[in-house]
């Protein structure tokens, strides 16, 4: 069976999108999950470009990968779930202040 280059490329993107989508659910790290949800949108945007819909691709990239990621990350910050592995704040948190 002959597979042309574009189909192969689309297949790679589809696998990437599916893996990212599963990672969003599986990841323990909340910031990581937000970042991976951005990759889902980026992959879908590339698929839209392959389908000759650049307007839709642009909206998907800007809103899906940019805006919604920022809003989700700000929500995490508001909820106190902003936690990077092994990285702590330079400033002491409220609890550390009271402990000291």
């Amino acid at each position, binding site marked *: 069976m002959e597979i042309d280059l574009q189909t192969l490329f689309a297949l790679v993107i589809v696998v990437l999108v599916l893996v990212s989508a599963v990672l969003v659910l599986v990841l323990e790290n909340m910031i990581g999950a937000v970042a991976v949800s951005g990759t889902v949108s980026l992959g879908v945007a590339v698929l839209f470009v392959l389908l000759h819909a*650049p*307007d839709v*691709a*642009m*909206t998907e990239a*800007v*809103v899906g990968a*940019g*805006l919604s990621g*920022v*809003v989700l990350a*700000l*929500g995490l*910050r*508001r*909820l*106190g*779930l*902003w*936690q990077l592995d092994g*990285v702590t*704040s*330079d*400033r002491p*948190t*409220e*609890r550390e202040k009271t402990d000291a």
Partner: protein
Amino acid sequence: MRSIAALLFAGGLAFLLLIIASELGFGEPAMLIGGDILAKAPDEVGASNIVTAVLLGYRGIDTLGELSILFAAATAAGLVLVRGNKDCHAGANDPVGGFILRTGADLLFPLLLVVGFYIILHGHLTPGGGFQGGVILAAAFFVLVLARPGADGSGGMNHTAIAFIEGLAGVGFIGLGLWALVDNGNFLQPMLSQGVFGKLLSAGTLPLLSIAVGLKVGAELAGLMTQLAEQPAAPRHDPAHPGDRPS
């Protein structure tokens, strides 16, 4: 009693919507207008980007509806967020931005501004338009806020000015529509000379509508994100003690 009334109301509303939906003939008559638009749009509207010709020319009122939905959503989010306690120091629990973020923001800001305005102004020629460009403009201003939050987390963003720009853009969009209504009897009908096909100054009022949409979306989202950033961050949740949740 109140919950029974709410249940009755919700049930009645669902019943009403179901009746209306069952009466509507979805897909009847079949919409075969797409081919006609593709054939006629370059001559009728003069925009080389057919998508923009449809969004702002043939379906301008749908775009107005989209803008009002976005406005309602941003207003509702703002109403909920404004109630946060103002006396709490906004940046108290945030890590400091650092040199790389600040320098990167300074480099990115003009670039994003140019890209945003380019996409808005060329909406009738190349892919993109008011909405996409507007989001990029909002991102440009938010990058600044992120790098230099300042004492209150607003990064020097003036909410009055943002609201003013947003209102002005909205009034501009509706004003262009009303102007067309007065001029030839059709709301949001593209007007002015079509110019030379494919040039920057072409397609009549479409670029003006595109600028209005871009400024409105940009101001709205920048205001929303700044408002989110002004919220005091909750103390970090310690994964070692999953039991004590931040209050």
